[in-house]
């Protein structure tokens, strides 16, 4: 490798390294989709995996209980952006008494629904534990029987 090649390669390397550091996402780095939404077939899951899945989904439902708009209003437009944000905020405030009437019922319903699912989950767990201990007791009886034989 000549000195010129060495310097040239090092320069290019550094240049591209800096560019990769600036990339906001992996997609930007490789210019292709990274994540692929994947539909899980719940029937394929084992008992432990289903347990995990139930816990994850319940936790997600819990996070989404409040359907009232809470995101901060933003705009990507440079000049008229602040105006758009202001108008939207005013509109949100003016309409909130009416939307809240509807959404409050929805939030209450969501809370009840999550609580109900949680109770079902706990009840299911209790039954599962009972079943396991019955199975263990049955095995112990079988072993005792074998000892006597």
């Amino acid at each position, binding site marked *: 490798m000549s000195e010129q*090649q060495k310097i040239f*390669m090092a320069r290019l390397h550094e240049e591209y390294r800096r560019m*990769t550091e600036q990339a906001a996402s992996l997609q930007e*780095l490789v210019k292709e989709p990274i994540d*692929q939404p994947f539909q899980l077939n719940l029937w394929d899951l*084992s008992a*432990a995996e289903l347990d995990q899945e139930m816990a994850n989904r319940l936790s997600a439902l819990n996070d989404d209980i409040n359907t009232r708009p809470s995101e901060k209003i933003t705009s990507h437009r440079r000049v008229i952006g602040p105006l758009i944000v202001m108008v939207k905020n005013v509109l949100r405030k003016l309409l909130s008494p009416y939307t809240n009437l509807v959404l409050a019922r929805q939030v209450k319903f969501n809370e009840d629904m999550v609580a109900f699912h949680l109770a079902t989950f706990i009840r299911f767990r209790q039954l599962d534990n009972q079943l396991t201990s019955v199975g263990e007791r049955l095995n112990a009886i079988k072993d005792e029987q074998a000892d006597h034989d």
Partner: protein
Amino acid sequence: MPSRTNKQIMTELSSSDPANAFTSHDVVTWTTTVETAVLRSLNPLLQNQDFTSFSQQLKKTSNQYGWQRAINLLQRLEIINGWRDRPRIGIFDHTLQLVGGGQKYGCTIAAVLSRFCFVTLITNRPVTIAQLENWYNLDLSSCRIEIIPLPFFERPEFGQIDPGIVTVRSENPFHLISRASGAYDIFFNNSMLEMVYPLANVSVFMCHFPERRRSTYFYVDRYHHLLYNSEYTASWIRRKWGLEPTAHIYPPIDMGGTEKPPSKESIILSVARFEPGGSKQQDRMIEVFLRLRRKYPEQMKEWRLILAGGSPADNPFLERLKLMAAEESGAPIDIRVNIPNGELRELYAKASLFWHLCGLQQTDPARVEHFGMTIVEAMQNRCVPVVFDGGGQREIVIDGKTGFRFRDRAKLMMRTLELISDPVLRANMAEAARERSRLFERNTFETRIQEFFVSLIDQYKTLS
């Protein structure tokens, strides 16, 4: 703009000018074929010192396929032209700070590869080369460590880095590792962490068991090679991920054992972690041992049960085991926790039988032993294994020749009694077990790893 079809891409690639492959601005996947075509057009420019054309061509490629690909091309050209004789390899393990079989697997690979590559061990929590050398008795002096903290897991509510808590709702915390992987010629993911997207020129995924299902953050299918540690693991890779693994390499086991048979004592040994969930089933071992003593007091009077293994500080399962062992006064049951390596070797040397129950009465495949390293360690020391008939254990123990396999507790009792009552059978099986264990020695592992990587690097070095 729609993507081009494979046929269109192939037509372009087979044309006289390989540079045609990137004349369009459509998004196409970066494949080995595309990479080779681009390298063929770039390399002569570099050799002829036509730097302007080279830069333009590289820019064109990076505009179409991303900046990372430009880095990948530069790295590979350095190797192809012999400007760098040793490739850079990054070996990732997010649990390197913990002692374990999987970590030993990765570190042994690092030790082998460091003879002909620059090896960096990538991890997320502090650990030193000296610690790793000490834990696994390896020479890692020419390797370096890169610690990349993952802010997502640094929150006080999280202890260990548990990929199980990452959902599609959270941002993928392992993208930091994915980014780091792009700095290497070869990236070896020894973490079983399917959420790391490989950006290196060559990527290898080591699967000790497919613990999680496919999800949005599943990238194993983006790796060039998928290694597996046992046929049992391979069958679950096919079933759970729908992927065909590429190479089978058993883990390295080196619990030594002497060529001359040592004098054995009447000890039944178990070596397994005292997992708080009880998956190694030491509680059942105590039950079976006590039952054997009650039912066959004469044959069992000399025999002891020793349960050895590692355990975290507060472990209710271990406390329960201690209570169980103390329940029957005078029962010779010894529980040894976190003992040093020397003491463990002594136990292996003295013990006659080895029990391993992991997988018994389990329906979840993850709770069945994926391989069973301690079984091989026992066999290397002429302990006759009596193990559950499932998982990786089927590949280690040939039933009736190098030990026994059982499906239920009654069979375990029967086989144990058979061995206790027949010293000749025990001695013959111990020798057969030792012979069988040679298949899994560290030397065999090192040879297989070296062969695999040398062939991979040879391909990487040439532009064919």
